[in-house]
């Protein structure tokens, strides 16, 4: 009898916890959008420079100087978008356009409108070891719930798929703690660990729910822009 009550209580608790997970489904835009001042309650934390080990920081610093010069000259920075290539992880979480979350108990997908980028998070599975997966733009992601927080771990991102031009290995691990700050505000606390970093690299993004927005298709099918040898950008108009 006692066991039966315990079992019943346990199964109730399980059912309740499954139903109790917050629902992130829907369409989100990064907060604050341009031209809007952030409410301090929901403001994201700034993204610091990557805490690279000294042997990697020298090159990063010098590349940043070149990049700053390009920006001042009004020339393209040479990121993926210029070449019609999607962001990959973790950059897609700050992609240019809105994103949509599809949530099921066993899998959560996130699609960023820019380049139709989709990442797939498999729930309650062990994180594969990085050298057992084929490296990819979004890596392999697994997730689990810790209370109302979705914890997502990602590894196996191609070493040339970078965020803020920070070098990394395919063994890089990205841990995200995703939770609701309010019914319409989602926080994504990111921690990047990699052997190029002296210590973990952390920041947080905020997203705000969009009402009635439908993501649009984005196939990068006709890139007519190119950067010539002198570094300036041109347009192919002889189509």
């Amino acid at each position: 009898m006692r066991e039966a009550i315990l079992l019943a209580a346990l199964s109730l608790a399980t059912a309740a916890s499954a139903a109790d997970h917050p629902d992130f489904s829907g369409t989100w835009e990064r907060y604050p959008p341009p031209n809007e001042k952030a409410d301090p309650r929901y403001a994201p934390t700034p993204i610091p420079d990557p805490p690279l080990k000294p042997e990697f920081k020298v090159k990063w610093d010098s590349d940043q100087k070149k990049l700053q010069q390009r920006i001042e000259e009004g020339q393209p920075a040479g990121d993926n978008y210029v070449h019609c290539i999607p962001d990959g992880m973790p950059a897609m979480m700050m992609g240019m356009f809105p994103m949509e979350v599809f949530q099921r108990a066993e899998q959560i997908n996130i699609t960023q409108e820019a380049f139709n980028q989709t990442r797939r998070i498999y729930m309650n599975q062990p994180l594969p070891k990085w050298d057992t997966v084929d490296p990819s733009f979004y890596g392999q992601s697994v997730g689990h719930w810790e209370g109302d927080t979705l914890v997502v771990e990602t590894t196996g991102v191609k070493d040339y798929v970078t965020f803020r031009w920070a070098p990394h290995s395919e063994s890089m691990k990205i841990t995200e703690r995703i939770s609701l700050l309010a019914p319409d505000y989602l926080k994504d606390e990111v921690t990047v660990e990699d052997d190029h970093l002296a210590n973990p690299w952390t920041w947080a993004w905020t997203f705000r729910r969009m009402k009635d927005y439908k993501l649009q298709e984005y196939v990068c099918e006709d890139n007519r822009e190119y950067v010539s040898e002198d570094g300036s950008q041109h347009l192919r108009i002889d189509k």
Partner: protein
Amino acid sequence: MNLKFGVRGAALLLVGVPALPALAHHSFAMFDNTRSVTLHGKVTAYQWTNPHSYLDIDADDGKGGTKHYTMEMTSPNMLHRGGWSSRTVKPGDVVTAVMSPLRDGQSGGLLLELTLPNGTKMLPGVPNAQRYKITS
């Protein structure tokens, strides 16, 4: 109609458009933002593609002939949020276009505004549009 005022008014409307990026697909450095060129002529193509849409016009050259121009626009999703569709304009339409010309001298530019045959003025949602001077 005062062109500049019209543009400013419409730009205010764009404030509500979600997620307009500070920097778009590229830097727009290839366009001369210190001046504009106004073209009047017949649309030959309207291409609804990523990363950019394009509008081609055979514009009056002022000598009784025409000259072909290719104008870059933003991406379809941004245009859509700004009220455009793939059917906003079609080949054969006679339109007036204002563009920032290409710096390298090719006959093309960045579309800043388009007046449709019915007189409707459309803005293509250029990021930081206020930085592009309309002088024509």
